[in-house]
């Protein structure tokens, strides 16, 4: 039996059976909001969390994580990981502010791109496991930034444009959110509609097969790492705009949440499977969870436990891998 003509949309865009993670995460976001609202109703008598201002503010703050996670997702889909995110963010921000002026943002992106390029070359050409190579690159970036700060007394003030992109608003909508939206659309198009995107999935599934099919695997890997680094650099420049300055360690808080957001969104940690919409929702989940825990003044111990439990429970509900039998 040959196949009947498919619904073109589903055959073109379908990347696996599961919309489940997306639905589940969205449901969980509602749970978080509900719990937080009950808390504020009880303590303040207001339902602040449901106000558009609060939600827009969360999305604005979420944009920084969201942009990082978008890049991280590309790399995770390949079956790799980028642990150099923290100091790529910091380096992007610090170099952008050091240069200042109209070149600030291009330099921030460029630094990220270069880090990503190094990562990509190490992973694709030297074939050093990304887990460990990017770890080393992170250490090198930290070293460079420490030397930079100590030796050159760099300028750290964000330019007006950086600040505008991070905290400005158009018709009440944060500009950072729009930047995130642009990045999201670009990544979504890349993954669903371009040869590079499809190659990313192919490599994540079976690199040897993709290679033998004539996919330029090395170039695709380098591209994905470059994009990941560049997005981290972008996030760094925006973050610097948000705090009006760059400082060391500003990226430390983004690595694990980015991985968690990607995975909670249903992307398989070993690569090959996952939808960008999931990552988007995963980011929102993480940002709201953090915010609500902070609002509830949860002590750090409780936060860590809840954080870990949420990841496990989410994955248990929808992410159970297939049992290997043959």
């Amino acid at each position, binding site marked *: 039996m040959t196949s009947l003509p498919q619904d073109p949309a589903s055959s073109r865009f379908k990347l696996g059976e599961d919309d489940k993670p997306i639905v589940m995460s969205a449901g969980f976001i509602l749970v978080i909001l509900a719990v937080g609202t009950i808390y504020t109703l009880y303590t303040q008598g207001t339902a602040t969390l449901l106000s558009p201002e609060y939600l827009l503010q969360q999305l604005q703050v979420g944009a920084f994580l969201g942009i990082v996670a978008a890049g991280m997702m590309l790399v995770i889909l390949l079956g790799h990981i980028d642990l150099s995110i923290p100091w790529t963010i910091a380096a992007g921000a610090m170099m952008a502010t050091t240069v200042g002026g109209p070149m600030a943002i291009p330099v921030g992106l460029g630094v990220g791109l270069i880090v990503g390029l190094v990562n990509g070359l190490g992973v694709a050409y030297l074939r050093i496991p990304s*887990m460990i190579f990017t770890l080393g690159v992170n250490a090198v970036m930290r070293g460079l930034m420490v030397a930079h700060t100590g030796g050159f007394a760099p300028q750290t003030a964000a330019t007006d444009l950086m600040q505008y992109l991070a905290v400005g608003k158009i018709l009440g909508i944060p500009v950072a959110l729009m930047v995130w939206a642009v990045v999201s659309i670009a990544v979504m198009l890349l993954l669903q509609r371009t040869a590079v995107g499809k190659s990313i999935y192919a490599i994540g599934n079976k690199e040897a097969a993709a290679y033998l099919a004539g996919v330029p695997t090395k170039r695709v890997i380098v591209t994905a790492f470059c994009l990941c680094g560049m997005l981290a650099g972008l996030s760094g420049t925006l973050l610097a705009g948000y705090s009006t300055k760059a400082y060391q360690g500003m990226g430390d808080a983004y690595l694990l949440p980015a991985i968690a957001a990607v995975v909670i969104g249903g992307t398989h*940690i070993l690569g090959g499977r996952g939808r960008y919409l999931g990552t988007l929702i995963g980011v929102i989940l993480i940002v709201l969870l953090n915010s609500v825990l902070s609002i509830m003044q949860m002590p750090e111990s409780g936060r860590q436990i809840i*954080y870990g439990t949420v*990841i*496990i429970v989410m994955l*248990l509900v929808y992410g159970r891998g297939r049992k*290997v039998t043959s």
Partner: protein
Amino acid sequence: MNDIRVRLSQNAALLTAIAIFILSYVFYNMNHPRGFSVAVLIQNSNEVFTLAMVAMAQTVPVLMGGLDLSVGAIMTLVNTIASHLLNGSPLQIALGMVISLAAGAACGFVNGCIVVYGRIQPIIATLATGAIFLGLALFLRPSPGGNVDDDLSWAATNDLYEIAATYGYAQNGEAAWFQPISWIPVPLVLLVLVAVLVWLPFARSVTGRTVYAVGSGEGAAYMSGLPIDRAKIAAFTLGGFFAGIGGLYLTLQTSSGNADIPQAGAYTLNSIAAVVIGGTSLLGGVGTAIGSIFGALILRTISFNFRIFEIDPLMQPLFEGVVLLAAVSLGAFRVLRVKNTLELFR
């Protein structure tokens, strides 16, 4: 003869690690004002022991083809538990040690169960449990502190002589037969004991082999009728146990407990680096915990050398980063030798 060649080539990575360690360690001692002395050896072995244990802990899941991002957290949790328990009568102390190690193993067991029955990828499951373990550690020790038996912590962090002198063995350490070994640092003895009494038997047990088999190919291991689930749980449990030893030793070394989150992260990441430098493949199936011990030794020896040489303090992190990057990139030479590109994809 042919066999020796086969064995050498199969263990090339381990042998390289050993050679690098010996070279860099001899170099350090030669440049140290008191190089090749017992005091230096004791100091070095104290510094290395916990990382070596955590690296061994990381090795077992890695051999199985998974990563354990919770080893640092388990070490930290056991550290906080032990800091509450290691005092009182000898019996109480002994019980405290047993409970601490059991707690480490239990954490590993929980990881194993989540991976096996929850069917969640190890790397992400342990990322999550790691957060939970750290939360528990913070709960047990909201701020650093603890009350650890002084004698014990002194004896555990010195040479065998101090043990004998503290606890009155071997005529307070003066017995003639004891002299040839009295200088050996306790952590070194512990390291060898753990390697010989725990790791080697495990590697030669059916469960241990199944760990290698799963790392080599889970489907094939299942088809071969191997007890995969048991091996996975055992691997994580053993990993937790090793991390627990590390945490226990850290407690003795610091006489306190500290739920230090950055430190837990640093140990986890260093353990992965140590495993890779020690010649274990992150893809699983190939390697040994002995190699990881040498990986940990190499990592530590790199920082030993920072204390000997004149390097601008603000350039040190850069230097360290470059050396780390170089060390983990050693495996890249393999790529140059591979003539069949398909062999790269695994």
